[in-house]
């Protein structure tokens, strides 16, 4: 039997919550044109994934999920640093950071 008794609520609630947050992040990336807000939406998606890792780790009593969450945080930090650096560089080159204007790679 699952050890959902260890969780405050049933696992399905965590999964659904994580999914909703993730999709909110996706919507942010797709709908916003401000690169900073897009990066923040990506952070939302990372965190949704982390939440799921921890919920399953607790449910299965296996702290490998914790290790994964740790890795995710690390990579997210790196990603944020690089992403913000790119934003800064693009701003320096163009005086604006509208992602729709940065379209040199159009085929």
């Amino acid at each position, binding site marked *: 039997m*699952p*050890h959902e008794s*260890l*969780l405050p*609520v*049933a696992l*399905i*609630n965590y*999964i659904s*919550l994580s*999914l909703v*947050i993730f*999709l*909110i992040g996706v*919507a942010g990336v797709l709908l916003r*044109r*401000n690169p*900073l*807000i897009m990066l*923040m939406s990506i*952070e*939302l998606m990372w965190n949704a994934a*982390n*939440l799921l890792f921890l919920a*399953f*780790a607790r*449910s*299965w*009593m*296996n*702290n*490998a999920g*914790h*290790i994964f*969450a*740790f*890795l995710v*945080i*690390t*990579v997210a*930090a*790196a990603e*944020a*640093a*690089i992403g*913000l*650096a*790119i934003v*800064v*560089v693009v701003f*320096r*080159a*163009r*005086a*604006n*950071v*509208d992602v*729709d204007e940065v*379209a*040199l790679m159009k085929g």
Partner: protein
Amino acid sequence: MIEFYVLAFVLIASAIFVITAKKAVYSVVGLLLHFAALAIMYLTLAAEFLAVIQLIVYSGAILMLFVFVIALLSSGVAPFSVGPNRLPKIAVPAILTVAVILAFLIYGVAHVPAVAPHGVGQSALVNGTFGAPNPSVAQTGTGSTHGPVGAANVFGSVGDFGKALFTTNLLPFEITAFILMVAVIGVILLAGDAAPYVQSRRRARIVERDMREAILRAGEE
């Protein structure tokens, strides 16, 4: 029980605020709230160490970085959304896609097993009795039990996490160090010295103009 629903509400509300805020700095505030609520939720999941990490790294470091960048870019010119929305048509399909995924995932998630499938790092507490570690997973899992917070044998405690991180998962840990180092070097290279980029800005304009002309010519042909 009730704290989950409160936290879930806060999380979703703050997330929606993040992506709908007019100004980026408001988004940061929303994100701060989101991260704080998430840290509390981690505590309810017995992940004390990660809750602390969440607060320190995300709220403390990453969000500060965002704030600094916003401050940097907002000085003077209006930086965002200067041109027309070149992707107006994707809004509808994007939302439709999201809705479809949502529907499918919730349908599918209802069938996800709450226990690990056989052979995927099964819990030490599979037979429902604490303190009886399963020898077959002792090396992959933790073999920990409930106990006082902070003790090495308590699931999710700093000791438990540290042991797993520095023994079984030492190599991934070293790799994270490497990733961070690469990121630091990359950032320094990208944004470190302004002087080359004044030049490259000029160059980029020329390149952009040439390419526009080339594309126009190609279009005429």
